[in-house]
């Protein structure tokens, strides 16, 4: 495949540009970076997304290491690979530091969800799962351009959402609808919360109460500093009950 940098750039979608912006964010001085656990977890997704982008444009085989990127590869991908290496190294350093569960204090705690013991493995699980569905469900919507467009945007919205969750929660189930929407569900013995992403920087959510789902009370805005309080409270109760 012979693609010029420009033709590739023409095909790069908005989420891909977001990926680059995110990489740049990760490379900022430590004092400016967001909480390290958020960075660690979210980076896992972005690494998977970048790998997918590289393989999509034929400059890197699906299972190839980043180092096998040919020197003739367009500048965009060379930069991409460099960014991934930086993130990978940062991840390794983070894991070294957090080899044992630690107690973390996060900004603006509004409930017990925000301040509690952090299980780093459990914390990253949703992102690992999200990265996994990039491979499986991403292919499932590949035949439908509209679903593919929605999925490509929704997966980043889901990543932003997870980056705002600062605590140990039950593992959510993550799935993709036929139209590309990403759906995240927490299922407990005493409740169930459904959060869905359509790729427009917002999310919808519903909570199971008294045997029926009811709509969330607040608009789900990923630009807002905090998640909706009724959702946080519900997840808090779900966590406590487990």
């Amino acid at each position: 495949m012979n693609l010029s940098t420009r033709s590739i750039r023409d095909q790069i979608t908005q989420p891909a540009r977001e990926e680059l912006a995110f990489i740049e964010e990760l490379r900022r001085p430590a004092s400016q970076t967001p909480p390290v656990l958020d960075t660690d977890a979210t980076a896992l997704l972005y690494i998977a997304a970048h790998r997918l982008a590289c393989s999509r444009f034929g400059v890197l085989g699906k299972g190839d290491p980043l180092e096998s990127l040919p020197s003739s590869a367009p500048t965009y991908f060379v930069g991409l690979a460099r960014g991934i290496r930086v993130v990978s190294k940062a991840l390794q350093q983070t894991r070294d530091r957090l080899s044992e569960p630690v107690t973390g204090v996060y900004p603006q705690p509004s409930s017990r969800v925000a301040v509690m013991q952090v299980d780093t493995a459990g914390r990253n699980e949703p992102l690992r799962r999200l990265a996994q569905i990039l491979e499986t469900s991403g292919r499932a919507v590949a035949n439908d351009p509209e679903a593919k467009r929605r999925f490509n945007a929704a997966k980043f919205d889901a990543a932003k959402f997870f980056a705002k969750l600062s605590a140990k929660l039950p593992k959510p189930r993550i799935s993709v609808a036929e139209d590309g929407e990403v759906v995240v569900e927490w299922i407990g013995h005493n409740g169930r919360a459904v959060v869905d992403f359509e790729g427009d920087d917002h999310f919808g959510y519903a909570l199971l109460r008294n045997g029926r789902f009811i709509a969330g009370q607040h608009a789900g805005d990923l630009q807002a500093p905090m998640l909706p309080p009724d959702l946080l409270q519900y997840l808090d109760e779900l966590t406590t009950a487990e």
Partner: protein
Amino acid sequence: MSACACPKECSQQQRHSPGVVKAEEPIVYVLLQPDHWAGGQLTAAAFAKSQLSRGTLSVCRGAHCTAEEARASIVQPQLERDDRRVLVGALRARCSDIRDIKLEAHRAVCVIDDGQANFPAHAVLAYSEVTKQEKFWERNQRSAVRAELARVFGLQPGPLSLKDCWDHFA
């Protein structure tokens, strides 16, 4: 109120249909995406919001076809179109339970006959008319309605083989 919410339920929509869908009819949703059933639960992702908005979410009227017809008309064509799909099983719900999904006392989901010449038992699910009112219809309400749909179809016994599902109707 019900008549206004779902006007298409009030009269037969397709000449090949066996008539309007009755409240007591069993409705079958064939699950072809393994990711959508796990741990004994049906994920809300099984029902695409965009299909509900367009009124194109396909279901089957269990009382008006056989397991073999459902396999030939629903399962086989979809498996041929996309080899990543796998038949997980058939999920059942009573039509009245679907029509009973409400938000703020308004009916939210319509069950509409959509019989085809080669498959008269075809029907579709759609968001109701009232939910299309701009002020009523907020993002979270769409999420709640879709989650309710998954809850209703996800009730026991869960996915059955086509044969077991239709044996249950007999």
